[in-house]
């Protein structure tokens, strides 16, 4: 591996990361080495979504991105969704709706769903299905996840109505 590297600086879950990394270092590996357990590698080909992180609010497959690509970006993993001990409303809905079984896809699924609601606060079931189509869940049969995302959207909507 090359000793020379690329200096990168980015925001990871609210904290600044400044490091020199090998050009070929993959973002998922970088994050996992730093204890970010919510990033899970499964397919390692950018097709299953288990390793999803939000980069400037956009879900990406960290197994298919180099670290240098996020230079200057805001990177959020499931650990950074909520800045308190409370769950993010999307996490809450996943818990309440039993929208997980083995849980391996769950962090990535939650992040992609959060990005959806940020873009489209009141999605239709079809919007949810299409938006989440890059995240594979082998256990649930997907139905409970669609319910959870719609439930989170409703809760958010109700919250806005009240305030």
């Amino acid at each position, binding site marked *: 591996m090359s000793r020379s590297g690329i200096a990168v600086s980015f925001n990871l879950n609210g904290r600044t990361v400044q490091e020199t990394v090998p050009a070929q270092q993959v973002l998922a590996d970088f994050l996992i080495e730093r204890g970010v357990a919510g990033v*899970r590698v499964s397919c390692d080909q950018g097709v*299953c979504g288990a390793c999803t992180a939000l980069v400037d609010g956009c879900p990406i497959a960290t197994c298919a991105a180099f670290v240098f690509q996020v230079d200057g970006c805001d990177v959020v993993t499931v650990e950074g969704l909520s800045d308190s001990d409370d769950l993010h409303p999307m996490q809450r809905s996943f818990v309440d709706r039993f929208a997980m079984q083995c849980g391996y896809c769950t962090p990535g699924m939650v992040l992609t769903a959060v990005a959806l609601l940020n873009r489209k606060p009141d999605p239709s079931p079809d919007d949810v299905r299409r938006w989440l189509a890059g995240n594979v869940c082998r256990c649930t049969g997907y139905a409970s996840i669609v319910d959870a995302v719609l439930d989170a959207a409703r809760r958010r909507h109700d919250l806005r109505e009240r305030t």
Partner: protein
Amino acid sequence: MTTRTVGTAPVRTDALAKVAGAALYTVDITVPGMLHAAALRSPYPHARIVRVDAERARRQPGVLAVVTGADPAAQRTYGWYIKDQPILAGDKARYAGDIVSAVAAEDPATAMAAVELIDVDYEPLEPLSDVESALRGDAPALFEERPAGTTPRYGRGASGWIHPDKNVCYRFRYHTGDATVMSSCDHVFDDSFSFSAMQHYHLEPFVSLASVTDGVIDVWSSNQSPFSLRRELARLFDRDEDRVRVHVPLVGGAFGAKNGCKAEPVAILLAMQTGRPVRFCMTAAEGFLTQRQHSATLRLRTGVMADGTLIGRDCEVLLDAGAYADASPLVAEKAAYRAPGPYRWQYVDAAASCVLTTTTPAGPFRGFGAPQAAWASESQLDMIAHRLGIDPYDLRVKNLRELGEPYMPGDSAVDSDLRSGLAAVAEALHYHDRPRREALRTQGRGLGLAIGFKDSGGGSKPASARVTVDGDGHVTLRCGTVELGQGAHTALRQIAAEILGIPVDGIDYAPVDTASVPFDQGTYASSSSAVMARAVAEAAIDVRRQVRQALTHRDGKALGDRGRHEDHALPQDWRRLLAGQVFDASGHFEVTPDADAPLGEKCFFWEPGWGGAEVEVDSETGRVRVRRLVVCGDAGRMINPELCHGQESGSAIMGLAQALVEHRMYAHGALATHDPLSYRVTTFTDLPDELDLMVQEQGHGPGPFGAKGYGEGGMLVVAAAIANAVQDAVGARVTDLPLTPERVLHALDQGGSEPSAGAAG
């Protein structure tokens, strides 16, 4: 019976960790000084291994060990009934993906780079790409010597043979009744079906971390059956079982694939060579080369009377087992025994052979032979109904076994009312609304039904559990059931919580570790909520008895205990009242052998599934759109309704995957769908327009509170229900899976008529 916790849906005990990214899986486990393994796999489907030169790899900086098939320890073999799979291929590679050599290095990149430096001389042999080529008279034998193995002790009407023919590793046959009844049938219909193989596609890869200290092997593994694994590893590495310790944290999906040896033997071999812990984490693509579902062809000869009375059935199943026997014998046994379906027969002769081919070894997959059997049987029932001019619903109802009637002579009684689930599905689909049905057909739409039925995983499956209360009132459940995602750790705690009258979160589930939890055969066949649940309930009831004694002693008056699950007359604060006292009890459950029962033990419970589909067939493109999928099962009694619905939904969509979406494909003898990128997995966009899930609670289960196992029924019914709906919609009969647009178009080209029917008698 009233319950407080059982029948409710408290939050999964692992939900918060899973949603926060804090859940611990084997893949997360690291230890100081850990090395990383990588494997060299044969690129040839069938080849003589002439020479392996690992010197260049050994000399690489950071490489600590390279093992090859020449190492005697690597030549030890494993498997279920038949021990034929070597840790490393020695003289011969039997499929493209067979591990020939493995490296341990300081980091994964070094290990992977070193693998590329191992030179192997192969002498390619003729590949046996499919069942047909493996069964040809002049085909080479995949095994020159007959591997060691044992057949189980079967009961009345069942037999098994190891390597009865060249390239057939196992044959199972079940028969009952008199074959001559076939000649008195009005019709004998002879139809053949094919079933394609899926990948399990568990998201957590096959991964193990092994260390060997003072002769004790410690292995952390993503595995469903830690005690069975321990036994196999102890045998492979020549030591007593208590010198092998298996730890299983949460498992990131299994679906059958994580039974038996996967990454463990290579990790252990390298740990022994280097004296350091070794982690072997396969890539997902390597997973595709490690295990798969069984593809199959099934031929059914079914004798019926003109009024639709089923008389007899001959069934011949050919399973493509792949290169090694793995669990194929067991899958064969189940496929054949389940092939008759839950109908009344005077005669059955069902056999299944496992054919060795130079493809990825096939192993357990959700449903275990039953999806293959149900696909053929439930498709043929509809074909027969159409030929006789009888409604497929009526044909089924006419022939279904009654609640309380033995499945086969000597076996246990059917413990679900099979008509009620079928009626529920038919009603949800408006099946009996004739005018609506006619209107649907004019739009290329149709309805189909199917019934699935499988014997439970109670046989040869002892389970033990231990419940303890420490002096501080902490209650701990110790048992070997693995949390695969099904929610067993939540449900089993609910059972203990119910009996002890405490909240679910008042019970700790001890880490699954063979050194500290009692024996359990394994977490498979949807059996935890009945089999292990019995052991857990027994232990909890015993603790409750002890607690009541202690309270009696303390208060000087008797409380009594009728020993029933629901009898929770403990004072709510008993843990506080008895602070400082400890309680400890064990429970055990095991189905007793029975020579009269065909599989050697009476089936513990039956898992039925009922399915229905409304499809729309595009006759221009052949595309099948599922407008509505209805799946129903009988949980006996739901310990946790949300968990039951989760199992129902997961197995229904896996059934949909089988029907329409997923299949492994070979091109020119090589696996074309060899990784997640090339394999089309089922996603959100494949969901049917509407999904209706129903869970019945008929109350006849043998588990605590009337529970049964649950989680495979949907897998058995969806494919046949959809194929039957396609025939109803456009008259085209597809007998091969999956129902690709190409196949549907081809069937439409046949004039929308079904394959020709043989008639006799």
